[in-house]
């Protein structure tokens, strides 16, 4: 079954993982800007990472027939560093016209400090100013509920924001109502331990229906699974859900959300049209 993984940190993965994605039906990935696992020393270092996201990864993905898109941001793990954040935010606009950049993300909270909120707010304003889609990271474990509430509260201050153009990711059972009730899209990221499992994600679909819900693997440099979405598909089939419902969640929904950017060329009904890069 064809699918789109809207959250995959492919710079941390091997080329073999692109092959696994292609073999299991992946037609497109989108890669949010992320933390390297250690703090970068300066804006130049982050800008090199942005070049990797916009120049190198699309070529690597294209070798396997996968379209690669990306998002620009200072990620929440480094957002408490206000000097670095200001430096990076000043560099982001020149990347926004790139043919594979879909918007601002992943932005949000980590430990929910005042500095993180200030950086998050500035990135929301950057997205508004440049009419960009927004991809939001919600914090892990015990911080998720508080961080989701504050992230939503900040968004609600801006009347210019269309909630249908915002995807709030890493949703779990205790945060998904808060997200969907405000009109945002919710992402369920399938992770071995610290996020939601495939079984629980299927439970969420069974309870809430498929509207405005996407699933992704969120694979990165930690314990994670590049083919988590196919495992979700297997779990849906294990429970005898029809293929039409499964495809709605793993392909049509992300295509619908992402196609709000005119740069995203995989349509909900048509064939992939590779983006031109470089």
């Amino acid at each position, binding site marked *: 079954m064809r699918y789109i993984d809207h959250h995959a940190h492919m710079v941390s993965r091997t080329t073999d993982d692109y092959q696994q994605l292609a073999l299991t039906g992946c037609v497109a990935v989108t890669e949010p800007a992320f933390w390297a696992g250690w703090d970068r020393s300066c804006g130049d270092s982050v800008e090199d990472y942005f070049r990797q996201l916009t120049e190198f990864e699309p070529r690597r993905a294209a070798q396997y027939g996968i379209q690669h898109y990306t998002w620009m941001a200072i990620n929440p*793990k480094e957002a408490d560093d206000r000097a670095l954040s200001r430096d990076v935010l000043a560099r982001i606009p020149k990347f926004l016209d790139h043919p594979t950049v879909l918007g601002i993300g992943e932005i949000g909270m980590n430990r929910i400090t*005042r500095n993180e909120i200030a950086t998050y707010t500035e990135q929301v304003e950057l997205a508004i100013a440049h009419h960009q889609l927004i991809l939001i990271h919600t914090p892990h474990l015990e*911080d998720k*509920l*508080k961080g989701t509430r504050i992230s939503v509260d900040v968004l609600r201050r801006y009347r210019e924001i269309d909630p249908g153009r915002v995807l709030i990711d890493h949703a779990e059972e*205790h945060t998904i109502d808060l997200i969907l009730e405000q009109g945002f899209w919710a992402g369920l990221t399938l992770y071995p331990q610290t996020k939601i499992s495939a079984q629980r994600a299927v439970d969420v679909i*069974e309870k809430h229906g498929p*509207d405005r819900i996407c699933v992704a693997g969120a694979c990165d440099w930690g314990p994670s699974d590049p083919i988590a979405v196919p495992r979700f598909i297997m779990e849906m089939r294990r429970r*005898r859900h029809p293929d039409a419902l499964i495809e709605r969640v793993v392909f049509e929904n992300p295509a619908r959300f992402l196609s709000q950017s005119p740069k995203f060329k995989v349509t909900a009904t048509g064939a992939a049209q590779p983006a031109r890069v470089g």
Partner: protein
Amino acid sequence: MKTHPAGCPLSGAQIVDEYFIENRTRLLEIAAFLDRLDRVDRECAMRDFRMQVFRDAVDALGTPGDRLNRIQLLLSDPTVEPLDRLDRKSALGAYDRQAKESRS
């Protein structure tokens, strides 16, 4: 137009047939974890804030209805105020309610 939730197509008996063994395994893993901790340091199981919440979560399994959401809330930080400064990079898995009470 809103799509109605699909519900689970499996019957109760089918859910048990399909999922009993793997959840039996999970149950035994939790029991083994608690026994291991008792063998090594029974006091730690009583003292560590994560294990205090863990015990409350195990108790919550015994009450039918929305167990998962109740356990998620037991594990979550219930406060609304941001931190004044970054204390660490990573979350711990449970919120230390006693530390919060002793600070306030």
